[in-house]
């Protein structure tokens, strides 16, 4: 005996255009749409906004946040945090400048070598910070929050100690001219570096076993361990990578500012995490995509730039940026709800 119900109307194509729109929304995600929307709004508010020069400007400004956010994303993938990125930026800046000006003094004939060596010293110092965090988290089981916060505090003290609070000058001017302001094929060099790093991050995260292990560790650390993944190595790797990426941003920033500064990057930890979260990276780990994170960083900078160009009052800007962050995530929630509705 069967009461196999009468079929309820299943209407997948009741409203095809709207369905299509929804599907497009679900597919491309929230950020591209928000980016286009922001561009339209700001274009109407300022004539100078939609110029090649300004957009290049925005992209170049986004470079630092984007690079740092890539590293941050890897840490977030494993379910951690990196609150030390600000300090790494500062420490790299200071050590790069100190080393480079030292080398430049010591070997005035080999400026190029001095520049390369100085940058390497900076990268090494920055990366070392990540190694310490990584070991703390992986080997001693310290919560990433406290570990990176503690390391950040320590590193900042060291950076201040090295500089005594004053900026470090005396790097060869070629460094700033090339790495900070140079351009190749019309694009500023920092943008090229960022493109390269995005590529590296993309391949690393999506196409290597190491990258896969980040997702596994963040998705379910115990499962990863039981699947024979070396979770400790993955954790160390992720903090080292985050520090390395941030250190590269630090070197670029130093070139751009033409001085080594201990007072940079204090907003970076929260800003980079925010860029990741609006890009859909989960703070519980295991979820996130490189492309979106880059868009997230771009979006934050675009909005700031647009508001500056539209001459929005600084106080109001603070309010607007907060509201936009929240709105972006709410839109993403709506998207996820749509996604659950659409069945493939």
């Amino acid at each position: 005996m069967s009461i196999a119900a009468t079929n309820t109307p299943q209407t997948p194509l009741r409203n095809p255009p709207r369905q299509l729109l929804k599907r497009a929304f679900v597919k491309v995600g929230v950020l591209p749409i928000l980016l286009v929307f922001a561009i339209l709004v700001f274009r109407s508010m300022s004539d100078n906004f939609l110029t090649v020069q300004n957009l290049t400007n925005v992209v170049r400004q986004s470079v630092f946040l984007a690079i740092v956010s890539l590293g941050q994303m890897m840490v977030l993938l494993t379910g951690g945090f990196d609150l030390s990125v600000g300090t790494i930026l500062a420490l790299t800046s200071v050590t790069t400048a100190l080393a480079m000006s030292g080398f430049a003094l010591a070997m005035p004939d080999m400026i190029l070598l001095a520049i390369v060596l100085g940058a390497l010293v900076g990268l090494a110092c920055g990366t070392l910070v990540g190694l310490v965090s990584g070991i703390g988290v992986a080997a001693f089981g310290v919560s990433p929050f406290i570990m990176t916060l503690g390391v950040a505090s320590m590193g900042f003290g060291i950076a201040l100690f090295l500089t005594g609070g004053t900026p470090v000058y005396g790097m060869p001017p070629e460094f700033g001219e090339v790495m900070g302001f140079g351009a190749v094929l019309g694009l500023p060099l920092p943008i090229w570096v960022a493109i390269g790093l995005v590529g590296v991050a993309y391949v690393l995260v999506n196409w290597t076993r190491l990258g896969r292990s980040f997702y596994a560790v963040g998705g379910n650390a115990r499962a990863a361990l039981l699947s024979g993944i070396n979770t400790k190595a993955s954790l160390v790797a992720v903090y080292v990578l985050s520090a390395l990426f941030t250190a590269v941003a630090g070197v670029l920033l130093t070139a751009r500012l033409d001085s080594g500064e201990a007072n940079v990057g204090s907003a970076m930890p929260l800003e980079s995490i925010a860029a990741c979260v609006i890009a859909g990276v989960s703070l519980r780990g295991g979820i996130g995509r490189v492309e979106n994170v880059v868009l997230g960083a771009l979006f934050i900078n675009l909005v700031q730039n647009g508001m500056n160009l539209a001459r929005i009052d600084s106080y109001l800007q603070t309010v607007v940026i907060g509201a936009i962050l929240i709105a972006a995530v709410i839109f993403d929630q709506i998207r996820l709800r749509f996604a659950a509705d659409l069945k493939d």
Partner: protein
Amino acid sequence: MTMSAQDHRPGEPPLLELLKVSKQYPGVLALDAMNFTLRRGEVHVLFGENGAGKSTLISVISGATRPTSGDMLMNGEPARFTTVHEARAQGVTTVFQEFSVVPSLSVEENLFLGSELSCGGFLAKRRMRQEAHAILQRLGFDLDPRATVARLTRAEQQMVEIARAFRSKLSVLILDEPTASLTDREANRLFELVDQVKAQGVGIIYITHRMHEIDRLADRITVLRDGKFIATVDARDVGQDELVGLMTGRVVGQVFPNIACRPGRAVLSIDRLATGSGSVKGASLQVRAGELVGLAGLVGSGKSEIIRAAFGLERTTGGTVTFEGKDVTNASPRRLLRAGFSYMPPDRRVEGLAMMRPCSENMTLSALDLKPLAEGPFLNRYREAAEARRHAATLELHPMRPERAVEAFSGGNQQKVLLARSLTRPFSLYVFDEPTVGVDVGTRAAIYRFIGRLCEAGAAVIVISSDLPEILNLSHRAYVFYDGRVQAELTRPNITEAAILPLFFGQKAA
């Protein structure tokens, strides 16, 4: 009954040998000088009550935990695995009781987790996809390799876990309750595969609480009790009752009680319900007070989803739900619970328990607004402790330490904690989705009696189960689901294996 130590073929060392292995957890000696041998090409069943130490034993073998003392030999050589990775490298592969799948990854990504194929340092994604297809096909598991594991049912996740084990090169295969939420179709595929690898000389350690699986598979059986080695016996030599006697040290008697059926008013009526995800496509059912209704069907048939939708956990797109005469379509779980609707989810980890909180808190979670515990906005924690203790006693929690965190208990005992929640307040409808996942025979009998008492006391009861004997022996009435629809409704004399099985596969009722 033969002791294995004498049963040793001379000249050839056993595949795996454990000597006097102990494992101490805080307050519990989970393994007490345990001995164990595994031969090539045998299925060796571990049998014991919940908390006897079976999972602990296999996690020692597989490198997931380190023993407090004791030795392990593999092929006669001393071996020690400090990580699962090392064990795997030796071909020791384990399907754990609490799955080791990563929810945020896809099925194929999980299949290759920790042993991804790569080519020049980069992942060979295409090759992995092909292999994933192949392995799923070989196992006959109907899974989309690209589906995200978080969106699979518990049974489907278990299938991923199993498929993964059969991917690797094997010398020892360990299966810890692999069929706990599978239906017979999948289980039978698994058994065939076990036979295959056994023929290749792989040693298999198999943990189960289902007697018919022991009949079907076991070559030898090792019985544990309280972490102690009791006996290793040849499967041909012992009967079920004898085994259960060894396990519990007492006689269990009949597992399934006779439950009186006195149908009264209609408690829950579901009419042509459809869900947004399409897992239920217009299914109807009805439950009356004083009767026990079973819901059966294959993995993914919608037998769980229909109740989840009725309980307000899934978005419905059509149909109505009536509970106690009121239309409650799309009502919140909270409202339904307070109206007397109890729902026990199938996956205790995902939806049932806060693992890091004490058992007592988990037990009383849904009764915090009721009298003995609630005093206005306050909570009487003394009464709460007493209540929890009482329920723990009813369900024979082992060890009797309800103040401990749930995660420190064995799988079966965690299940008891979950069940205890339905004792804490009066309900007029109880829904149990896979109530006996991982529960030992003795306790299972207790749980069935407990469900029976609820029913006889006038409550409506729904049991959703992939364990067919459970449906066959308990239900007064049964609905068989197929592809999101009710394929048939059966009543008492007709609820037989022969009647149900064809329905599982979409055939019309006779």
